[in-house]
């Protein structure tokens, strides 16, 4: 059996490399009974389509940034509630709290959850020093989904909608003056060509999840199922470790290229954690009792 695995990010991205290792682990572990072939870079299906493709069996397995589907079900956005879980350790806890519910949601959509790995934490990029939310007033801030638009709104920034492909140019020409993303995005798009300050606020750690089509998965032998799940568990751990290891490197690269990389000031930190309370409440309202249960059990950990 051959499983084509669509993935959205370039082959050299650590998620893609991790998934390639996962595929190799499965191929070896099943002794060729199941062969997973990875297709990075959106070469098979674009990121937006991967989940649906797997749901409908157009692809038997795939990897996707899970929070992209928060419009469909707020639970998918649990890893992207701003300023709720702001470190690798907290993000891991939040994920443990959320996983049972997410597995249920996926199961109801004909998907089998295999593993997930976090991106490096999201930080704020600016063109000037920012000591508090008051300093953000009126800045043109790139919003690419509901949550980032809400952050702009809370902070009094002007949200500008810029697609990923246009980000570099938008920054270079001043269409956008600020955005929130991981250190890796900053390095990848050589953001120092346009911006000057990076604040490591660790707003959230979004995850890429790998899932299989339920029918395809159920058609596997029990041994093969176990191999897939074991390799997945390993890949999840490896991905998180790699992400943490890379984070420091990304921030150093930003600094080496002349950006001011720093922790947020106390004032900024407390301003942002207030946003966090507001947006966590808003998320719980949207996600209903399941959402409240997840947040409560996370806070109890």
């Amino acid at each position: 059996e051959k499983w084509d695995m669509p993935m959205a990010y370039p082959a050299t991205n650590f998620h893609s490399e991790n998934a390639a290792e996962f595929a190799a682990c499965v191929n070896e572990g099943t002794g060729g009974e199941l062969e997973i072939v990875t297709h990075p870079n959106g070469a098979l299906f674009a990121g937006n389509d991967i989940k649906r493709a797997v749901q409908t069996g157009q692809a038997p397995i795939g990897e996707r940034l899970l929070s992209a589907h928060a419009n469909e079900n707020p639970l998918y956005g649990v890893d992207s509630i701003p300023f709720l879980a702001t470190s690798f350790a907290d993000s891991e806890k939040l994920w443990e709290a959320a996983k049972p519910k997410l597995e249920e949601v996926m199961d109801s959509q004909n998907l089998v959850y295999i593993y997930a790995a976090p991106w490096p934490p999201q930080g704020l990029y600016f063109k000037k020093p920012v000591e508090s939310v008051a300093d953000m007033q009126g800045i043109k801030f790139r919003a690419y989904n509901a949550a980032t638009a809400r952050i702009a709104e809370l902070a009094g920034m002007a949200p500008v909608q810029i697609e990923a492909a246009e980000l570099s140019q938008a920054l270079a020409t001043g269409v956008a003056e600020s955005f929130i993303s991981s250190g890796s995005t900053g390095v990848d798009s050589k953001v120092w060509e346009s911006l000057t300050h990076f604040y490591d606020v660790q707003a959230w750690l979004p995850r890429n999840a790998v899932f299989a089509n339920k029918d395809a998965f159920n058609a596997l032998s029990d041994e093969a199922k176990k191999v897939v799940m074991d390799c997945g568990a390993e890949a999840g751990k490896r991905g998180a470790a790699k992400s943490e290891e890379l984070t420091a490197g990304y921030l150093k690269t930003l600094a080496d290229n002349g950006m001011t990389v720093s922790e947020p000031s106390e004032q900024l930190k407390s301003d942002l954690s207030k946003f966090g309370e507001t947006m966590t409440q808003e998320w719980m309202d949207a996600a209903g009792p399941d959402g409240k249960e997840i947040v409560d059990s996370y806070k109890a950990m």
Partner: protein
Amino acid sequence: MTSTIRRVLDAIYDSAAVLAAICLVLILIVIVLQMASRWTGISFPGSTAYAGYLMAASSFLAFAHALNRGAHIRVSLLLTALGGQRFWGELWGLLIGTAASTYLAWYAVKAVYWSYAFNDISQGQDATPIWIPQLPAAAGAVLLAVCFADNLLTLVLTRRDNIRSSAIDQTAE
């Protein structure tokens, strides 16, 4: 009787094309509003997605009209070489065209159904249920299939289809 059907079908193809043209104007308006919203600081969430939906609607709704106006292109070398036997070449082309466009239409309609059944929602800020923008595209795909079948039938009955190249601009012989 046949002429009534002819008139009705042509009217449908052309009205769909007018809708398509309106969608093109709407793309322009959405993009202008998007820029204006940025200059003024008023937010217009989901604008890029709306422009994309309008483009899909514009393209698909104009498919049938474009076919009858000879705008869809093909390699007509063999057809010309066939000379008096051209009918058979046209027949083959329309048969394949009808089959392929019916296939496209079938899955376009099915995609709308699944988008609806799955509750597939746009991942952008617009959060539109995807079946809504997919609906005009599916309608356009169905119309293209109807138009191909229409041409096939007309060809078989009258030995001449309804495809007329618009010779207004730049005919080069």
